[in-house]
Structures are given as C-alpha cells and as structure tokens.
C-alpha cells in the first residue's frame, strides 16, 4: 500500500526526531559520566589530581577576609604540589566557589564543589557560612577544614576541623588579654559586637566571661548589624559610658570603622579587639585611631616560629607584600588538609582523609605548635598578642 505523502513526511520527521533525541541523550550521558568521576582523577595512570573545594567569600562584605584566605590557600597548594609533599605525581587542584558573603549562596557554592568531586572542602570564613556548608559536607562524607568562623560548636572530628586556634578558647588570646588588661589597672569595660553574627556574639561572650573573671566590671554592650556603616549611635553610647576599656568584636571592616568612630566621638580609653583588626586594610581605614589598640591575635608576625618565617618570606615573594592573619588562616588550613591526605595513604578517599585528620594530635603551624582536640586546634602557653603603634605597625604586646 502506498503511504500518503503527508503521512510519509510525518513518519520521516518522527524518525529524524528520534535519532536526534537518542544522540542528545547519549551526549548528555557521556558528559554526566565524565563529571561524576571520583575526586581523584588519574590521567594515564601516572599523575593523580586531588580535587579540593574552596568555598569562600570573594565578593561582598566579608570578602576582606575571604580573598586573603584564598591567597593563603593558593600559596600553600603551590608549595605542596611543587615539593611533592603528597607523593610523586599527586597534586592538589583547587575548585573555588564564591559565597558572595551570603549564607544562602554559600549553600550553592558548597553544592558546586561537592558535585565537582571534591574529596575535601576548605570553607567557613564566617559562622553563618560555616553553618550552612557543614551539613552539606557532612551529608557528603567529605571532611571540612574551617577557616575563620568563630563558633566553637562547629568542629566535630572526623567531619569538621579547624586549624585556627580560637581566641575565645579557655587560656586563649582573649583570656590572656583580659588578664593583662586587669593587671594594668582596667576596672570597667564595654564590649561592641556585630549582633547578628553568632561567631562574633560567641567571641564577645568569652570576653565578658574572662574580663569578669579577671575582676573587670563589664558596664554595657554596644551593637551593630552586619553591613551597618552608620556607627555613630553605638560610638556615642561608648563615649557616654566612658569605660576604661572597650573591646571590639566586629566583622572585618566594621571593626576598623567603629574604632575610628569611637575615637571621633571623644572616647579616650583603652581599646582591645578581636583578631581581625590586625590587617593593613584596617589601618588604612582607621588610621591613627588604631594607635595603642591591642589585638588578641594568635598570629604575630614577629614571633620566632620556623613555619611563620617560611610563610612570611614565601608570601612576600609571591604577593610582594607582608601577609596578614587571614592569609595565615587559609595557608594553615590547606597545609592541615595536606597533612591528612599524606597520612591517609589514599588522598583520593574522603573517608581516609577524614580519619587521618582525626588522628592528627599536633601540628607545627604559623601560629606556633598547636594540639588538636575533637578537630579543634589549641595553642598552649603564652600567646603572641599584638599592639598597634602610631606609625601603623603591629608590635608584640607583653603578656604575663
């Protein structure tokens, strides 16, 4: 029977469409399969590339911490790869994802690196971001090396680690600084905090505890929200209360602006600060308002640690400037992860890396020797605190 012309055309078109659809499905499947390769990809059986995700704020209000952390990670990865630290032919490849300083976007950033096959993730510049990245890495059984988020409850070996000793830890930078302030005659204090950031709130609570333990009366609290630039109100509050000491525990950038605002408002007392007020960017913003400000930092550029000297000279050679604490945070996190990869014996296995990291009990870092407890680094003994001078340099602040 002869098929009518119109029916023949429809039949032909259908077959053509089916062929194209089949081709499309085949291509899509091939692409999907290629993307689903495990975190360690072997090229030709010779070189092994280990994918590590870096989830940091490269834009937005917290990028002043995220960008330097990325630089620190980059430097560490260069050193790890060029020295063959993980073995012959084994190299780390970093996949970056920008959180845009937005916890909602940090979710997508974390998903991106995890679906790209990362065997480990470095991330969590701020506590809100760390809070949303952690459930995703835990669900994916991928170890997470936190950066500068302050919430002490986030660490949880063998899933989540933090190689930055927290200033709020017992006997840590905050406690030592509080004791020193008390010994220098401080009787009253106020704290200033970024009130909608759990990490800063937690840091502030530790200051209050340590100050009161040292016999200093905390007379009030000034607060601002993330991104607030009009700080004249809280600054006026501090000037009105006129305590002997003001502790600033605010996000990077806001802390320097607040130091300037309180000095402009006429406050002449001592100022102590969370560690983010130790960068050159802070000095450029606040200028001489930082003169005499004590920074409770675990990172002291003048300390005599071999790892610190190596880091400082390598960083200066690569970036033509001196590193700051955020560079050190990223650098240390990357080296800590590499230690886990090396000890694991199988740097392409997330599970092996996580177990190896959980077994790390001590590490020599740019902050000095640290010990680990349930994934969190601690520094014992006297800490290198710092004080700004009038010419914009950070010097060691003598502690008892």
């Amino acid at each position, binding site marked *: 029977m002869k098929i009518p012309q119109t029916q023949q055309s429809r039949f032909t078109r259908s077959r053509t469409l089916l062929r194209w659809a089949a081709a499309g499905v085949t291509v899509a499947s091939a692409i999907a399969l290629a993307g689903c390769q495990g975190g360690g990809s072997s090229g030709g059986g010779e070189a092994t590339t280990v994918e590590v995700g870096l989830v940091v704020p490269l834009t937005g*209000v917290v990028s002043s911490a995220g960008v330097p952390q990325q630089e620190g990670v980059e430097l560490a990865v260069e050193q790890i790869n060029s020295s063959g630290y993980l073995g012959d032919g084994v190299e780390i490849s970093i996949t970056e994802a920008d959180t845009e300083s937005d916890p909602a976007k940090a979710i997508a950033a974390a998903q991106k690196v995890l679906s790209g096959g990362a065997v480990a993730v470095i991330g969590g510049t701020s506590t809100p971001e760390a809070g949303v990245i952690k459930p995703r890495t835990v669900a994916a059984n991928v170890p997470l090396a936190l950066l500068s988020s302050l919430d002490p409850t986030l660490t949880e070996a063998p899933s989540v680690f933090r190689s930055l000793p927290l200033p709020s830890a017992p006997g840590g930078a905050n406690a030592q600084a509080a004791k020193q302030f008390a010994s220098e005659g401080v009787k009253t204090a106020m704290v200033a905090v970024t009130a*909608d950031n759990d990490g800063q709130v937690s840091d502030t609570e530790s200051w209050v505890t340590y100050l009161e333990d040292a016999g200093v009366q905390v007379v009030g609290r000034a*607060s601002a*929200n993330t991104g607030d*630039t009009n700080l*004249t*109100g809280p600054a006026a509050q501090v000037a009105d209360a006129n305590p002997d000491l003001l502790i600033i525990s605010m996000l990077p950038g806001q802390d320097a*602006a607040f130091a300037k605002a309180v000095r402009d408002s006429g406050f002449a007392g001592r100022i102590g600060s969370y560690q983010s007020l130790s960068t050159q960017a802070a000095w*450029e*913003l606040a200028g001489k308002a930082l003169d005499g400000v004590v920074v409770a930092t675990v990172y002291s550029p003048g300390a005599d640690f071999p790892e610190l000297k190596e880091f400082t000279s390598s960083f200066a050679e690569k970036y033509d400037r001196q590193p700051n604490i955020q560079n050190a945070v990223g650098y240390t996190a990357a080296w800590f992860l590499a230690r886990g990869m090396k000890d694991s014996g199988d740097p392409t296995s997330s599970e092996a890396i996580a177990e190896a990291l959980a077994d790390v009990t001590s590490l020599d870092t740019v902050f000095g020797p640290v010990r680990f407890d349930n994934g969190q680094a601690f520094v014992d003994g006297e800490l290198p605190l710092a004080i700004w001078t009038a010419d914009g340099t950070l010097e060691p602040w003598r502690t008892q």
Partner: protein
Amino acid sequence: MDLFLQLCVNGLSMGAVYALFALGFGLLFATTSVLNFAHGMFATFACIVAYATMQATGVPFIVAAVGAIAVAAAMGLALDAVAFAPLRRRNAGLLGPLMTSVGVWIALLAVAEMAIGQDARPLSAGGFESTRFALGGVSVRWLDVVAVASCAVIAVLLHLLLRRSRVGLAIRAVGWNERSALVAGVSSRRIFALIAVLSAVIAAIAGLLDGLLTGAISPQLGDELLIVGFAVAIVGGVGDIRGSVIAGFAIGLIEVLSVQYLGAEFRNAATFGLLLIFLVLRPSGIFGRAEKVRA
C-alpha cells in the same frame, strides 16, 4: 539625657542624608514614573571618584567632590539617554524601565567592585569630619551641621525651582501629562534630561555626605542608601519635598534610637515597620493626596 540628645544629633544628620537621597529618587519617579534601582550607584560612584581623585592627585576634598558630582550628573544623563528614553518612546510602562534599572544597577555594582575592591576605603575631608563643638552637654560635629544645612538648602532650592519658576512649571506639566505638556510647547526631552541630571546630582551629594559621616566608602554604599531612601520616599510621599525631609529626619532618628534602646537587630524592623504602617494606612505619604483616575 545627654546620650539621648547626642543620639538625636547623630540621627538628624543621618536623616538629612536619607532625606536628600529620597528627594532625588522621588523627583525622578514623580516626573518620569521611573523607579530607578540604579539610583544608589550615583552616590557610590561620586564617592569612588572623589576618593580616587584625592588619592591620585592629592587635591582637597572639596575639589574632588565637585568633580565627582559632575561625573554623577553625566552618569544620570547618560543613563536616561541610553536606558530610559528609548523605553519612554515605546511607552514601555513601569516594568520595562524598572527591569532595565536593575540590570544597570548590577552592572555598575560590578564596575564599582572592580574599581575599589571589596575592602571599605576611608573618605576624609582633611580632618574636617572630626572637628566638633560642644552644645550644652552634646558634642556636635561640624559635618552634622553641614549635612542638615545641605538638606535644608537643597530642599528649599528644589521647592523654589518646582513652584516658583517656569522650568518648574514645565517639570510639573511633563510629570502630570507629557502629551499635554507637548501640546503646550514644553520640550519633554529637555525636561527629562534636566530631571535626570538633578536627581543624580542630589544623590551624589547624599553619597558624599554619607561617606564622610561614616568615614568609609564601599561598593555597597549606594545600596544601603537606596533601601532606606526608598522607605523615606514612600513615607514622605513620592515627589513631596516637605514629606521627604520630615520622613528622612524621622527615619534617621528612629534608626539611631532603636539601635540604642532596642538593639541593633531592631534597626531595620523599626524602619520598615514604619514603611509598612504608611503603606497600609496612608500609602500616599505624610502630605500626599490620593489620586483619582477617571475613565
């Protein structure tokens, strides 16, 4: 009591900045029906240009500011010519210009971030921003006085322009009905260009004052002004000069006092709570009158 008065001074100076921003924003919307989400970028770029000029040449702030305001004026003119005028010719309504302004906002924000990065930069008028005098038990910055005076002067000048001049008559005519104004011999093209320049200039002045008052500029400076400025414009009545000034000062005070007595977390809630109340109870603003549209 001294703290309360001090906070009021701080609130009034910040409120002056909000009022200025709302004046420009509202002027543009009332005349052209364009809700310009890129309006904050005029403030941002004025600060960036002033900062970069002082860094590069060492000129005093006032010289850099004049140049920055001129750049903002040019940006306003260019934006209107390139983005909004073609849409007006096509009777694109409200949505077209709004979406266009969002695109422009995103693009300009990226440019601002490339220009100065993400770190906040200091903006200084050679130390003038820190000079103070005592008024009773309150410490007042001279900059606070400049901010409030600038708002007052610009509001008065704008009122005189709109209500006492032929140009103002033409502006109001075009804002009311462009076709009728055309019939009466008014060049709507020139009026729209004038409005674009005026609103950008006012936004630039607001941005520069904001940068000096807070001591820092960032790519997000204009966005913060836009959010609050929008609330001020609605509460005050879009295009209403008296209402914008009063609403600006009111919201500046509410912000500062709510942070002190309720907590920083209530700052935005207080501001936008007020906005919500006005939208529900008096959507035309403090002095606005509801418009009747007859078929």
